[in-house]
């Protein structure tokens, strides 16, 4: 019962947030709606017995990525910038019969693929539900045994991203003639 309430709430927040990101006119609002959508995804992880993933999602996205995005929006002109408006009205090639027919064809193909995948997924024999237990200990064991190469590579990736972001974003003066 509690699972179902959490699932429905998280699903509504996730899909509503994603749709609001698409249809919001203000980029700052879109970023906050993205935050809501990521919270919903964390709730979905909680319904999937993935407690460590839910915590990581909240820490990394809500604490890091969305704040970074908000700072980037504010540093690049904020909401006064004209390209922060919804871009689809600016494209002159859209809105005629050709694009609508192409969109209809794409919708038919996508719905066919989705129906096929969902039918197969429903036909898969679901094993018994996992018991509610903490996954942190098992995940830690897997990270340093089976997946240790990917773990170390991700640390190198993070170091490279840190140094690279600092190098790219540093202000360069003209007299430096880099």
């Amino acid at each position: 019962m509690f699972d179902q309430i959490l699932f429905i709430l998280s699903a509504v927040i996730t899909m509503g947030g994603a749709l609001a990101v698409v249809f919001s006119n203000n980029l700052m609002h879109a970023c906050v709606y993205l935050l809501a959508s990521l919270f919903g995804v964390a709730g979905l992880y909680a319904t999937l017995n993935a407690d460590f993933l839910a915590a990581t999602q909240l820490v990394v996205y809500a604490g890091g990525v969305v704040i970074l995005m908000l700072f980037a929006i504010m540093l690049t002109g904020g909401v006064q910038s004209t390209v922060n408006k919804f871009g689809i009205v600016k494209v002159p090639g859209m809105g005629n019969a050709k694009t609508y027919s192409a969109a209809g064809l794409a919708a038919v193909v996508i719905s066919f693929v989705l129906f096929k995948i969902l039918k197969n997924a429903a036909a898969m024999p679901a094993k018994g539900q996992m018991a509610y237990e903490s996954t942190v200990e098992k995940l830690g064991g897997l990270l340093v045994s089976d997946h240790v190469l990917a773990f170390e590579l991700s640390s190198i990736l993070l170091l490279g991203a840190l140094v690279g972001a600092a190098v790219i974003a540093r202000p360069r003066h003209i007299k430096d003639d880099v």
Partner: protein
Amino acid sequence: MITLPSYLFISFVLFICGLVVMIARKNIVAIMLGIELILNAAALNFAAYTKFINQNLDGHIISLFIIVIAAAEAAVGLAIVIRFYQIKESIHIDDATQLQS
């Protein structure tokens, strides 16, 4: 109610929303919002298949690495966007036509 196809449908909606954001918006930061939505859709699929199909936590590991890579990608991408804004005074995607100016 809580079955695999419902999670796949939610992930599908997230993916399509991210795709529409990436195609329709002309702001580079907004395009990165779309990338985040798409990466979340992929990570959600891994976690859902882990619970309902194979149950050996490898999907959780891959979701974890997706989150790590998304964070690194956001840091580097936003650095590039800020540098681009310093050079071009614009963040319209159609202004980004040269690798080196």
